[in-house]
């Protein structure tokens, strides 16, 4: 066969259909793809051209605003930043000088300036903790001491008061560490709570079941804002005079309870999706309730719900910014407060873009990691 084709080719017979030619360039490759998907009809051609024009314009506009026309520094006279140069641009260029001037406030809030290395180190520790927890090789009992030690070190760094570190009260904490503390503790505590509540909701014991249903429905029935208000405005009134639970701790408890209710429903979804046979098989093996749950049910159920779990995690990471309504300076609130100063008023876009990028980095990392996790853990499902 190959001989024949070779011969015919050599013989120079052009209309021999049996020759293995590569498909014409117009049917494959980038050009064909573009033709098929972008310029197939006059309508899609029009849409393509319009979108291409808009994207190009916006990209060029953004690059001009963010880089070409941007002002990176402004002179400071007598401790007062001279922002006239930024104002004279009237929005044609970004005034990154505001970030230059305020980045430490946005990141660390009102934490004492000369001690900023401490919250900075705390942020690094948090990220390191996330990375270590994400690595498969640490998925065993070593993770527990790692978390305890890291969180203790974080507590020592933030509060101080020992080892020669000056004491810093909680109301001076702010910025990124607050966001990380609220979301890490919130989710780390809410997750086990959620599993217990989800199991409780499927329990055959009526008291436990009613309690869990009540908890989930009550918490889910109110917005997070009202829970934070409860924690911040109502709760202190019930306490005896002179007894004050810290504002940050109250917000933390509210966020944990709220996250717990939502995660519990996600976990319950996983439990319900598991075929009955799995439960019956586990029972047939003579496993106790906790053995059955821990060894057979939960590993499968949690694997099923990785996408909605991560969805909830990402949602809560961003929801922590709601603490602004009770006067805690998380990352977003610190950003907003940074532009209260008259000299810097009106440069909100630059600050919000910066804060947005920080949120994006964390959320995108979570999302990417969960995709990998999903792929690895659900390999048996994709044949």
């Amino acid at each position, binding site marked *: 066969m190959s001989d024949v084709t070779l011969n015919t080719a050599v013989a120079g017979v052009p209309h021999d259909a049996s020759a293995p030619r590569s498909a014409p360039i117009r049917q494959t490759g980038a050009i064909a793809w573009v033709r098929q998907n972008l310029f197939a009809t006059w309508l899609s051609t029009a849409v393509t051209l319009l979108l291409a024009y808009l994207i190009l314009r916006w990209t060029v506009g953004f690059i001009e605003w963010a880089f070409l026309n941007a002002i990176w520094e402004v002179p400071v006279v007598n401790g007062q930043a001279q922002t006239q140069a930024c104002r004279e641009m009237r929005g044609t260029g970004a005034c990154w000088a505001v970030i230059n001037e305020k980045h430490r406030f946005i990141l660390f809030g009102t934490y004492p300036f000369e001690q900023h290395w401490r919250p900075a180190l705390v942020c690094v520790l948090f990220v390191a903790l996330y990375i270590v927890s994400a690595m498969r090789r640490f998925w065993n009992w070593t993770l527990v001491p790692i978390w305890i030690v890291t969180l203790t070190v974080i507590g020592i760094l933030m509060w101080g008061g020992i080892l020669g570190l000056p004491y810093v009260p909680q109301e001076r904490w702010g910025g990124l560490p607050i966001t990380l503390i609220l979301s890490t503790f919130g989710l780390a505590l809410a997750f086990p709570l959620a599993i217990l509540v989800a199991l409780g909701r499927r329990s055959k014991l009526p008291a436990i079941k009613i309690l869990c249903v009540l908890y989930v429905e009550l918490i889910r029935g109110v917005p997070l804002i009202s829970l934070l208000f409860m924690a911040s405005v*109502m709760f202190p009134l019930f306490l005896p005079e002179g007894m004050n639970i810290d504002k940050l701790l109250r917000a933390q408890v509210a966020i944990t309870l709220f996250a717990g209710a939502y995660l519990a429903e996600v976990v319950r979804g996983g439990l319900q999706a598991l075929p009955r046979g799995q439960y019956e098989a586990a029972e047939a093996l003579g496993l106790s309730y906790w053995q059955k749950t821990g060894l057979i049910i939960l590993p499968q159920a949690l694997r099923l719900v990785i996408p909605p779990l991560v969805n909830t995690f990402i949602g809560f990471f961003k929801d922590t910014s709601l603490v602004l309504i009770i006067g805690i300076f998380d990352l977003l609130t610190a950003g907003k407060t940074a532009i209260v100063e008259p000299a810097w008023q009106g440069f909100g876009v630059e600050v919000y873009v910066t804060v947005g990028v920080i949120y994006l980095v964390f959320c995108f990392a979570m999302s990417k990691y969960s995709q990998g996790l999903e792929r690895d853990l659900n390999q048996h499902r994709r044949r």
Partner: protein
Amino acid sequence: MKAMRLSVTRAVGGAALALAMTVPALAQAPAAPAAGGSPTLDAIRARGTLICGVNTGLAGFAQPDSQGVWRGFDVDYCRAVALALWNDANRVRYVPTTAQNRFTALQSGEVDMLARNTTWTLSRDTSLGFDFTGINFYDGQGFMVKASTGVRTARELEGATICVQPGTTTEQNLTDWARSNRIRFTPVVIERLEEVVQAYVAGRCDAYTTDVSGLAATRSAQPNPREHSILPDVISKEPLGPLIRHGDQRFADLLRWIHFGLIGAEELGITAANVQQRASDANPEVQRMLGRTGDLGRMLGVDNAWMVNIIRGVGNYGEIFARNLEPIGIQRGPNALWTTPGGLQYAPPFR
């Protein structure tokens, strides 16, 4: 005390109340304060720091600077208290409070005092259970117009379109004022602050109305503040001042006389720069105020050099005003001393 707490609970609103009813067991009567003396001052002294509730960020009144240090008009009042108590302006912990949680923070003892641009009203003084210790800033609703329009008083706004935010007393004040002055106007009601300012700047309305301090802050944030002028007319009363919990007269006395001291010092020409020389002034009132003669400080429960320490630390009322509010374009107006025409700031004698 119990009745006061209950009234606060009531004031917080129906939704919260419904939630509160689910946990009635938690609601307990707080312990009554010790008779006599000052529970707040005792607690402050024992703690060694004053806890001051401030705004989460309001230009000129309370805002953290780039280094995270709180600065502003209200913040200086907190500092003055710390200076009177310990001659150390740094012994203050600032708790940022929002408009919603500020009263609970004070009520529950989370903060010792509020210096948070709060308007003195009858209901706050009585049913919320607070004591206002003076008016350190007379605010009120005003108007801002473009300077190019040549408008000099609010009465010239006949037939104008006026930008206003809905839902607050601002809109109501505007309508009342227009009706009583027989001025016709077209309101442009916009919810969000940035948008309402933008509408005004873009020329959708001839004037923008809100509290004068807010107008000044907006004006100073414009590319060219001189293009806008704030009219001298003020159409509502928003007296702002520090406040504490009911039932602590000693602490109230101290705060009240710190405020009067700052005003008195301005009146007598005592400034941060000259307070040392003025201590040996011939004027007997200056001598009494600065603790040279008499025992005024001790009567308030602080050191006799209290005013010297305060003035050296934060300056007199005029200096505090000039440092914090004049850079954002707020003029003295009604906050001038009573010796100036139109000024309302007045201090009783120091004797």
